[in-house]
């Protein structure tokens, strides 16, 4: 894939997918995020790096939580934020996606944060907007949700340190999950010891092993000795498309309960990108239990997004001294 994410000097210009980024860049994102975490925890809460810049949240798919974290991250960087929520049907009413982009560009923005229900949409937008605009992918169809994966990696590093020895299991609807794809790329690039996907056959995409994962159709085998368990949300539509018989059956065989967790490493952590469906993919006891780091993921989300925006707005270099 032609890598349009990096500029001619290898610095981050767009953030569209984890695929195509090297380990060093991912680690820089995690380290930069660490400095922003401290800011969030102190009274100033500001790092006005993006003062005078305008960031547009271009959400073709509705989402309150992702949009608000991006908005908060942008505001902590002192950027101006514009929220545009477009239902996809608006574009089919006549105005093409390209025309819409040109109209928004005329408002002189610097960055688009895009969420769309089509795979490849962020890549498409990045390829067709004017060269001074950077695009951050907030989720495109089934393809990738790279900022989510980075905050998940940040959380894993926070609790587990080095990736090299980790066994990670991603459980759930892998087939339709952009979060899973991004997480798989991130874990393999960061050098995780083993990445597993666990789901019934109907929810495993063909050829997924080529991404560097081991496939498990049984929860117990899939969780044995793992250090990190990532649970994915199960959407209700999957029952309608004859992919699963019922939520009840899914929870029976793939739901994360205390007893299911017993085969994992005693210090294993439990993660979930949210929002969680209690009693469908995860038991309330586990979601609220001591191994769950779900809330930590949420609070890390702002710092990680701040880091990515800051890195795009000003490329990473060695700090020079000011006279």
């Amino acid at each position, binding site marked *: 894939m032609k890598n349009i994410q990096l500029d001619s000097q290898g*610095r981050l210009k767009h953030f569209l997918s984890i695929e195509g980024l090297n380990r060093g860049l991912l680690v*820089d994102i995690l*380290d*930069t995020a660490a*400095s922003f975490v*401290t*800011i969030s925890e*102190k*009274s*100033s809460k*500001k*790092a*006005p*790096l993006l003062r005078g810049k305008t960031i547009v949240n271009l959400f073709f798919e509705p989402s309150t939580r992702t949009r608000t974290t991006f908005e908060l991250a942008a505001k902590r960087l002192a950027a101006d934020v514009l929220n545009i929520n477009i239902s996809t049907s608006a574009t089919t009413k006549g105005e093409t996606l390209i025309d819409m982009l040109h109209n928004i560009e005329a408002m002189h923005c610097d960055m688009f944060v895009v969420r769309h229900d089509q795979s490849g949409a962020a890549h498409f937008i990045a390829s067709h907007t004017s060269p001074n605009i950077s695009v951050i992918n907030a989720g495109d169809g089934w393809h990738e949700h790279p900022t989510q994966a980075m905050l998940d990696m940040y959380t894993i590093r926070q609790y587990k340190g080095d990736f090299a020895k980790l066994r990670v299991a991603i459980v759930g609807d892998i087939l339709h999950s952009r979060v899973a794809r991004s997480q798989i790329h991130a874990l393999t690039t960061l050098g995780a010891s083993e990445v597993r996907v666990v789901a019934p056959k109907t929810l495993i995409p063909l050829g997924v092993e080529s991404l560097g994962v081991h496939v498990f159709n049984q929860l117990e085998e899939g969780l044995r000795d793992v250090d990190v368990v990532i649970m994915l949300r199960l959407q209700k539509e999957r029952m309608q498309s004859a992919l699963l018989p019922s939520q009840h059956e899914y929870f029976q065989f793939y739901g994360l309960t205390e007893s299911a967790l017993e085969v994992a490493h005693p210090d294993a952590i439990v993660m979930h990108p949210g929002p969680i469906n209690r009693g469908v993919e995860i038991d309330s006891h586990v979601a609220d239990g001591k191994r769950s780091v779900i809330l930590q993921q949420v609070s890390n989300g702002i710092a990680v997004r701040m880091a990515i925006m*800051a*890195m795009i*707005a*000003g*490329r*990473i*270099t*060695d*700090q*020079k001294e*000011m*006279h």
Partner: protein
Amino acid sequence: MVIEKNVEILLASIANQIKQQYGAKTREQLFMIGIHTGGVWVAEQLHQMLELTSPLGKLNIAFYRDDFTRIGLHPHVQPSNLPIDINDRKIILVDDVLHTGRTVRAALNEIFDYGRPASIDLTVLVQRNGRELPIQPTFFGCALHLNKNEHVKLSGPDPLSLDVYNKKT
């Protein structure tokens, strides 16, 4: 700790200036903040010499610089630490060299994001020509007039020494 003679003399001069300006009772209320990295080294010395009671604050202006888009962001940033509430406080802001004034501008912006101080006295070891902003120190060790290619730098933390270099273009 090794401190070169010239630096020692400058520090002593600054400490005296501050003592003359502020009596012992007022000095107890002073809050000293050093700007990373050189300003912190200088502030540490002054803090000791003046026997200030409140803890030393440290400011990293990385996120407030005006040249961020040109020079970028370093992945490892030592975070700022202001351990006490600055509202209505008299602040001594310390840096090693005052040149263009942009570092101090950034520091002032950051301090005001924390609250509203009663006053700020800028204290520098050396001030030199080349101001680009209307900023002047209250207390300073010495004033230098340097040529286009000359450049003054405090190295440290141990030994702490002040040198003038010729920047070869």
